[in-house]
């Protein structure tokens, strides 16, 4: 019967059972109250039907204890709903540390995704079962939203920001994804398919695909030289700019005394608007690349910078002065 007239989508991610459980719980509580109140109304409606035209009702003005009762009980129930939802949401907003990172770009009116080895897809997303997958998403124009009902996950894709979303697929198959933030004319057909595969199939697909996959790290390295980044960012830190070796994920000391973590958002901002955060003991010399790079170029530069985290940073005093803490 479920397949004839489904009331909910297939459950294909680690979040799906939790979300459905929340739905079932809240539905049960609400149905209970809805039925109870409706039954009371119908009962009173017929039971207290006016007998004679001049009749009036019994003047009951109120009852503070009843009021307290139906103030407190709904409040307590509401808190349980809040708590259940909060747990799932916080888990959803905190990706685990070891994820398979896939980049997704939304633009009017298509989705481009890029696997870790550079393999690109349009309106398709292949992911392996049982692996924690993190999508790092950007928009080239307006706000979109990447939504996978079978996973019970979605997240806005906002221009000027990176938003991340993670899930662990639990069931092989092909599932719809949709754009879920109105974005103009073809918003309704800006969707595609997520294909969940066994890990071995996924690996095979990844390496055996006929479309030439350009390693984004290689592309990024090339761009790094083209845009003359390497004329200031020496690996040994003795240039005019901090070294980028071992930078990604570390804490950085800024000129105004504060400390930030060099995450995706920091690196992106440092390329587009470098004067927003000047590193301690360095001058504000870097030109801003706002408006000069496409999202894909930005992603390849970021892949390259991230690949440098494996390199050892220069000695303290000669580079970007990492605080040594992660």
């Amino acid at each position, binding site marked *: 019967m479920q397949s004839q007239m489904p009331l909910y989508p297939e459950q294909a991610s680690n979040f799906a059972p939790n979300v459905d459980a929340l739905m079932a719980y809240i539905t049960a509580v609400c149905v209970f109250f809805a039925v109870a109140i409706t039954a009371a109304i119908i009962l009173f409606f017929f039971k207290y039907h006016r007998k004679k035209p001049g009749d*009036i009702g019994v003047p009951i003005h109120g009852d503070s204890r009843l009021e307290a009762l139906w103030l407190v009980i709904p409040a307590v129930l509401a808190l349980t709903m809040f708590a259940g939802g909060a747990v799932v949401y916080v888990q959803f907003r905190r990706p685990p540390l070891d994820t398979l990172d896939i980049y997704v770009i939304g633009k009017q009116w298509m989705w481009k995704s890029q696997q870790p080895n550079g393999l690109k897809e349009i309106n398709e997303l292949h992911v392996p079962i049982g692996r924690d997958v993190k999508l790092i998403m950007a928009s080239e124009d307006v706000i979109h939203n990447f939504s996978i009902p079978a996973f019970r996950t979605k997240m806005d894709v906002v221009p000027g920001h990176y938003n991340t979303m993670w899930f662990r697929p639990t069931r092989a198959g092909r599932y719809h994804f949709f754009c879920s933030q109105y974005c103009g004319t073809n918003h309704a057909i800006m969707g595609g398919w997520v294909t969940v595969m066994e890990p071995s199939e996924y690996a095979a697909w990844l390496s055996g695909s006929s479309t030439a996959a350009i390693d984004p790290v290689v592309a990024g390295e090339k761009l790094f030289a083209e845009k003359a980044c390497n004329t200031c960012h020496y690996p040994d830190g003795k240039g005019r700019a901090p070294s980028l070796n071992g930078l990604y994920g570390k804490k950085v000391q800024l000129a105004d005394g504060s400390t930030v973590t060099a995450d995706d958002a920091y690196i992106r901002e440092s390329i587009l608007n470098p004067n927003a955060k000047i590193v301690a003991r360095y001058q504000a010399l870097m030109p801003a690349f706002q408006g000069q790079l496409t999202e894909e170029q930005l992603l390849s530069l970021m892949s390259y910078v991230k690949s440098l985290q494996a390199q050892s940073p220069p000695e303290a005093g000669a580079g970007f002065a990492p605080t040594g803490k992660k």
Partner: protein
Amino acid sequence: MSSIPSTVGNELPNEHYLNATYGIRSWLLTTDHKRIALLYLASVTFFFFIGGAFATMIRIHLLTPDGYLVTPETYNKLFTMHGVAMIFFFLIPSIPAVLGNFLIPLMIGAKDLAFPKINLLSWYIYLIGGCFVLYSFSTGGLDTGWTFYTPLSSVYSNSAVTPAVIGIFINGFSSILTGLNFIVTIHTMRAPGMTWFRLPLFVWAHYATSVIFILGTPVIAITLLLAGLERMFHLGFFNPVLGGDPILFQHLFWFYSHPAVYIMILPAMGVISEIIPTFARKPIFGYSFIAGSSIAIAVIGFFVWAHHMFLTGESSYAALTFSLLSYLVAIPSAVKVFNWTSTLYKGSISYDTPMLYALGFIGLFLIGGLTGLFLACLGLDIHIHDTYFVVAHFHYIMVGGAVMGYVGGLHFWWPKITGRLYPEAMARIAAVTLFVGFNLTFFPQFILGYLGMPRRYHSYPPEFQVLNVMSTAGASILALGYLLPMIYLIWSMRYGRIAGRNPWPATGLEWATDSPPLTENFDKTPEVTWEPYDYSNRPDLGLEVGQPSLAPAHGDD
């Protein structure tokens, strides 16, 4: 049985506000709050037709997954213009500007509002705003969604955004001035003896609504102003390419637009709080709790706006806070529902049309309000955000709630406004038709939403078709439910039975004067000595006081 005794008034009063002066100028330059209410009635009904026409086209288009009725561009314009027309030019003004304007001075024993000329100005401002928006609709349309998210609206859309934004900006001042008028009136113009806790709950509801009007509307005004400037002069407040932040737009937009939904529902709740005691002939259960809950909703309603933004990438701490507060704001509404239901207990209930609308309201508002709990739940919202679940939720409240309250209120006070009664049998049929049609239209949409169908889609995967067809079928019945009252209410203005002062009878001050009332409302200033809804102590109502039905089920005579 109907409340109306067989012998009511035989003829209309000689002089009343409708025949006091003649000529189009006496209407277009009137400062009488009752005439201004009717001017608003005509204009909001006009915009209701426009919004309704767009809704009809949307539902017909959605009969098939690929939608052949209109192009994608046109569809996007249809849902946008449906939202703009309905929200800004129908729902927000409807009860306050029509019923509120008409009734508040009568209910508090005043001759008019505090600022009658500003009242008229409010109507003209509304019209001017409406003209700009109609201009936008007819020269390229509007396809940004009524929410105008940037940078789609300020940079990418090719539709007539600027005139629409100007029109809504102007219309905001109509709301602000109405709210200002109501607040001052309720504070300073109450008749002797009309203390705060003797005020009808309709007045409390409008006071709370007016607080939202004056605090919230200026913020949408400035937001749309900035978005309009951004579009016209290529500025960058909300455009990331120029260093701006699209999420800032959302914060500013929702800071008003969330309280706006309380503007739409509080007055309807006020109407229900008047109807139920009248047709149960007993005081409302928990008067002070209902009054207090209106104020609580208005206040707490200002602190929940970012529950529209749980998935924008905002901080989890913010999301947790807003989710918690959103649950908090539901509690006062729950209190009202319990209190209304309790008022029916041991009442003397009649099945008149206004009562049917009131009970229909409770049923539909219950579903709409409860489904808000689903959306406030963070974990669940991840899945149902921006799906048809949301569409169903807000239509249950705005249509099932606010519009039923409005139509029920129109019926309840129709005798006071026109001096005549509508045809009761026809009206009951229409009320039931509305209720049934509404549920058929919107309940399937909850399921569609949970299955994952996003909103604002001109075409959809074929597996969603059955539910869409159900929804459209329901919409045709709903449309009938709206058309019937329009027809018979107009008919009744000429041919309806004369109503007399107080046909139901009800206890409010507005019923202690002629139907229709004099221009100055009362012969002489009333002095209030009774509590609201006090059927037991109102011998003037001609009811069998002293013999309340103590054993209502099988009471002896």
